[in-house]
């Protein structure tokens, strides 16, 4: 409960009035609602009868549609939006947990100023003072302002940031976080550009596919758009006449996608390009799949040592040939590159080699297989993802003292980048740092001010979805399903208000508030599936149905191969000498915590990891044979060291990982982010250096070797599975 004294109430009212005058908000706008006691309940609310509001999930960048159950003005359950083309009524564990972001006990409840960076001592700040501070800092910074957004920053806010930056002559907002790196957004885009001349994320229709070869992509777990892929996978497994498709997963450590595969192939880390090139070579040499496919394969396949390729995936050559045949002779085969593959030192080459399999199969476009989303017929575009190199450039500018003001929204660079990036030192050289994040995360802890934005369940927005499904371009709507839980202000409004005083920016940002801006963008769209003849109706239906999408998928031509010559098959390079650092390090985003932003939510912390059944912890997955050689068992603490850093974590003896590889999930190891995340587990990104991939743009986060030393201590694993050895005397611990 929030207790208000009369004095506080007057203070808040005064602040509200002041801001309203500053904002020039005398006229009525869409957002302002009258707060009334429930003695006279709002017309649409009946005690015990839920209201449902459509909006967009912002727990990851996939952009699933949600409907939120609201009872007497409070959100009590999030479900998938059955109409939405991406998730079709379904919702993953992370999406369900959005409520705990709204009701998180560690939210920043109002604008604050930090006494000293890193002190975590915050003084409350009245909002009109906070907005004035922002205005003064923006005014003083001029074009020396930098905006750092994340992959879940709402599209409208990115667009407002971009307009501001453009108007004052600052560089475009940076949109980079750990999720974009782990999803391999930059790598996938670059590979598609090289192969098809399409600089976009690929979309895969799996429902009608008969063969899927996935190289490292955990598309059912934490990769790109897992719920959408999950729906497609369900259909893939129940096709007409009992057909259930063939899924082959090539990856060094079994993911949940690997667990669902008909064949799991433990390929050596970094050798995926070689295997994909070998498949092309075999198809070309053996003429599998008819002359057209074989000929195309011949143009794409280079010289490949087939025996070496078979060895890297622990297969006999005959098995590899059988796989190549199954792929080439399928009616609608799909190859999906992703995961650690995209973080290898040869990331773009490897992703390109796998994507080339799609081209050869002629599976591109049409009902199944690889496709690209048709453009949204309007001025709205998905904001471009920035690469790690862009982030590095900004860090260099910070170090050179060129950045006077840094605004951070939806990203947590201190946690999201390896320590070697020097982000923490660079932040120290920035004049003022203002964070808009709802919780005190690692970056906000180094900020001077936190002006918390509303969470996605309290705020407005839109978002161009990428990648989509079913060939439908989608623009999601986001609307407040509940009133703001705390005294937090939408960042869009805060920015618009502050920018009004800056002569260079004011003409570029003429809107009274962000809702006016969003409405203007949305009503410019052509009529979508939900119809509506005039602007008001279209706007209402946009909110009611959870977004805009056309009634039917527009005709789209199959993407044409523009690449020439053979794909590169060279293996990836790894940092660390093989003798000194004997194991490949395989990092992966947790299915539940994602890149770490889920760690503040108890539902996600308490739900067991699907394969290890461990909750609340970080662990190191080691093959049983390797564990035996090292003399370690479940729960033994080990020291994992790479040339760049070290972490400690307990061992989980994992049967489905290569003996030369160890795997650590990402997501834990926060020094901030609230009580559920803080001082829990370790952050394996500390083992990663800052080398770039073959395009010189993306972080090669999967390119280090490690060594393991046994420590003389134990940490009991918090696992759901039975820990009773069938042979031992049963001791029940309660």
């Amino acid at each position: 409960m929030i207790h208000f004294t009369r004095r506080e109430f007057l203070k808040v009212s005064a602040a509200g009035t002041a801001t309203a005058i500053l904002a020039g908000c005398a006229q009525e706008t869409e957002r302002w609602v009258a707060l009334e006691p429930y003695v006279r309940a709002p017309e649409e609310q009946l005690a015990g009868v839920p209201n449902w509001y459509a909006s967009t999930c912002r727990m990851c960048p996939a952009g699933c549609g949600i409907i939120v159950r609201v009872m007497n003005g409070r959100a009590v359950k999030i479900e998938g939006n059955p109409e939405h083309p991406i998730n079709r009524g379904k919702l993953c564990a992370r999406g369900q947990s959005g409520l705990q972001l709204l009701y998180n006990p560690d939210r920043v409840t109002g604008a604050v100023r930090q006494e000293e960076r890193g002190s975590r001592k915050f003084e409350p700040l009245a909002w009109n003072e906070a907005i004035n501070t922002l205005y003064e800092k923006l005014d003083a910074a001029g074009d020396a302002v930098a905006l750092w957004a994340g992959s879940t920053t709402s599209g409208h806010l990115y667009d407002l940031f971009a307009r501001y930056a453009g108007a004052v002559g600052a560089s475009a907002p940076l949109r980079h976080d750990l999720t974009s790196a782990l999803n391999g957004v930059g790598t996938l885009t670059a590979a598609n550009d090289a192969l098809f001349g399409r600089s976009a994320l690929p979309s895969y229709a799996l429902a009608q596919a008969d063969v899927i070869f996935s190289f490292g992509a955990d598309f059912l777990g934490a990769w790109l758009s897992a719920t959408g892929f999950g729906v497609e996978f369900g259909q893939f497994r129940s096709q007409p006449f009992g057909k259930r498709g063939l899924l082959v997963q090539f990856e060094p450590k079994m993911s949940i996608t690997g667990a669902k595969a008909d064949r799991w192939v433990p390929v050596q880390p970094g050798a995926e390009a070689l295997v994909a090139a070998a498949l092309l070579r075999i198809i070309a040499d053996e003429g599998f799949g008819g002359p057209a496919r074989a000929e195309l394969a011949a143009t794409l396949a280079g010289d490949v040592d087939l025996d070496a390729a078979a060895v890297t995936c622990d297969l006999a050559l005959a098995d590899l040939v059988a796989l190549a045949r199954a792929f080439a002779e399928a009616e609608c085969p799909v190859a999906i590159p992703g995961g650690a593959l995209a973080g290898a030192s040869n990331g773009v080459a490897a992703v390109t080699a796998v994507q080339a399999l799609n081209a050869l199969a002629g599976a591109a476009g049409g009902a199944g297989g690889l496709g690209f989303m048709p453009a949204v017929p309007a001025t709205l575009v998905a904001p471009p993802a920035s690469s790690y190199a862009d982030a590095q450039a900004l860090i260099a500018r910070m170090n050179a003292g060129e950045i006077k003001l840094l605004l951070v929204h939806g990203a947590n660079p201190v946690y999201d980048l390896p320590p070697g990036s020097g982000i923490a030192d660079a932040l120290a050289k920035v004049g003022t740092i203002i964070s808009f994040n709802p919780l005190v995360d690692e970056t906000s802890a180094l900020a001077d001010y936190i002006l918390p934005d509303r969470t996605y369940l309290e705020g407005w927005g839109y978002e161009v979805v990428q990648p989509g499904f079913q060939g439908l371009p989608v623009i999601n709507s986001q609307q407040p399903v509940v009133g703001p839980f705390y005294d937090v202000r939408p960042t869009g409004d805060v920015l618009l208000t502050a920018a009004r005083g800056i002569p260079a920016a004011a003409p570029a940002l003429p809107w009274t508030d962000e809702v006016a801006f969003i409405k203007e963008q949305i009503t410019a769209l052509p009529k979508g599936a939900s119809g509506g003849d005039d602007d008001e109706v279209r706007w209402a239906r946009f909110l009611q149905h959870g977004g805009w999408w056309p009634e039917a998928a527009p005709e789209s031509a199959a993407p044409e191969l523009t690449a020439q010559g053979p794909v590169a098959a060279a293996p990836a390079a790894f940092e660390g000498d093989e003798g000194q650092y004997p194991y490949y390090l395989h990092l992966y985003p947790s299915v539940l915590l994602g890149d770490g932003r889920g760690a503040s939510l108890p539902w996600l912390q308490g739900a067991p990891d699907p394969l290890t059944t461990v909750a609340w912890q970080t662990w190191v997955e080691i093959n049983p044979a390797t564990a035996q050689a090292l003399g370690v068992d479940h729960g033994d603490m080990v020291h994992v060291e790479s040339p760049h850093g070290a972490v400690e974590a307990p061992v989980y003896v994992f049967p489905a990982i290569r003996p030369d590889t160890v795997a650590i999930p990402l997501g834990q190891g926060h020094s901030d982010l609230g009580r559920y995340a803080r001082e829990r587990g370790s952050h394996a990104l500390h083992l990663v250096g800052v080398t770039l991939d073959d395009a010189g743009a993306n972080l090669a986060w999967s390119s280090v070797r490690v060594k393991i030393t046994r420590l003389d201590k134990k940490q009991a694993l918090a696992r759901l599975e039975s820990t009773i050895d069938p042979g031992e005397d049963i001791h029940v611990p309660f």
Partner: protein
Amino acid sequence: MAEERNNGHKWTMIVDLDKCTGCQACVVACHAENNVPISSEDEVIRGRANHWIRIERYWEGEYPNVKARFLPVFCQQCGNAPCEPVCPVYASYHSTEENVNIQVYNRCVGTRYCGNNCPYRTRLFNFWAPRFDEPLEQQLNPDVTVRSPGVMEKCTFCIQRIRRGREQANIEGRPLEDGEIVPACAQACPTDALIFGDKWNEHSRVAQMVPSERQFKLLENLGTEPAVYYLKGGETHVGE
């Protein structure tokens, strides 16, 4: 007493193991819908992880020919339930309307006999009062009670949703439609591995899916007559 066909509904769940990816969407959906508290790290270590639905994971074979199998387990809503006859206070009883096992929380005195007698280990005991750090209690579903310490609890097939759905159909003066009532787990499941319905409605999806050659029940030999049917996972071989 074994269940007999009556005028009620026979709520049934089908779990298609070919589609379950272990993603935990159902687990979190259930926590959200049924106000199930989260166990702390220490409690999980002591074997007191608290989920009404859990995904069991089984390893098969050895590297490199290793497979992981997922098995979602929750109260099997037995037609011949071992938990029912052992309850001294009739807190655990069989509904003849819905034909599911009901747990009456305010009747339960916490003998834990039902939990001991359940072969599926799906009944959970509240050792402590559930704790929701303020303001997380705002997320609680007002349709479901928060169970007090000393009380057994378990999956209810989202009985609150069943009741709401039946009442709504009653108000509108129409029969219940298949698919109208969906428990939180089945609603969330991305791959559609969980399918729910009334088996005694012969037009329902479950009624049509139950006679599958892939179908089996957990610990079928015990004669508990579960209302949860599992469909065995398939396998496609290269070259098929």
